[in-house]
């Protein structure tokens, strides 16, 4: 296989596999947050803050994978 084809494949696999973990993680964060709001609707403001923060943490890992994919493809 020639180098260009390998680069494209590598970029695709990097972001494809790299997005699985964060997607599951953010789904779990959202599920627990919504469940907590369901138990205690008055605390929804207090639950939203940590939820957004934790989701940004989990999403950052997907972004690391995306940056690697972009570096492989464009550099």
């Amino acid at each position, binding site marked *: 296989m020639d180098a260009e084809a390998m680069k494209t494949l590598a970029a695709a696999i990097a972001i494809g596999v790299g997005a699985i973990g964060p997607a599951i993680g953010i789904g779990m964060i959202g599920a627990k947050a919504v469940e907590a709001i369901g138990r205690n609707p008055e605390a929804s403001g207090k639950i939203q*803050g940590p939820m*957004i*923060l934790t989701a*940004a943490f989990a*999403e*950052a890992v997907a*972004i*690391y994978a*995306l*940056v690697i994919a*972009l*570096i492989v493809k*464009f*550099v």
Partner: protein
Amino acid sequence: MEISLAAEKIGHIGSIPITNSMFTSWIATIVLVVFAILATRKMTMVPKGSQKTLEYIVDSLLHLVNSVFDNMTQTKKYFPFLATLFLFIIANNWLGLLPGVGSIGFHEIHNGKELFIPLLRGGNADLNTTLALALMTMVLVQIFGMVAIGFFKYVGRFVNFKSPIDFFVGILEIIGEFSRVISFSFRLFGNIFAGEVLLAVITWLLPYVGPVPFYFLEIFVGFIQALVFTMLAMVFIKMAITDHSEHEEKAAH
């Protein structure tokens, strides 16, 4: 379609190259400063117009910072840095969405190929800007910690000879501080640069109509990334200025 990971150089000042991201972040700074100057001329007790907007922004940020520190004196001490961080990042992110950014530029010949060099590019779509913000934040966290609880107590968090476990925890803390620089810079850079690439690709696939929902997403992402950067900085400052030995004494009782 030409997507460049590194920000392209558009000129020089002496021997320092100026990139299009740097130029856009200058424009964002000028916008913030001019808005602040215009809103604080002829201030009245009951605000109207731009003074009202500025007071709303400052008040919301003060509540945000206070919600983490829970202590008004500490909030007021660290508020200027944190609010500036938030406003700088959000101004850069949103300015990168205006029409003209990324599309107005000139053609140049590089290595025999003709490339399009845009004149403006989102300020945080350059790893240099985000790395500078991350380094500045982590250095300031260390300085705030040393000023708040004293140099030796603060360094004692990292270099701890009380027991072998504490020693390894100290080493992990040092590694953690460096990893925070990487995570700060890459989180912001990745989100904003990936947003630019996404908009370019969607515009290429479905012009005029396709990008509309993605612009909404980018506005939201720009706000959230500024918020996350600031909140993380706040949490790290709070951890740095907390005196841990006090906690141990309280737990012993």
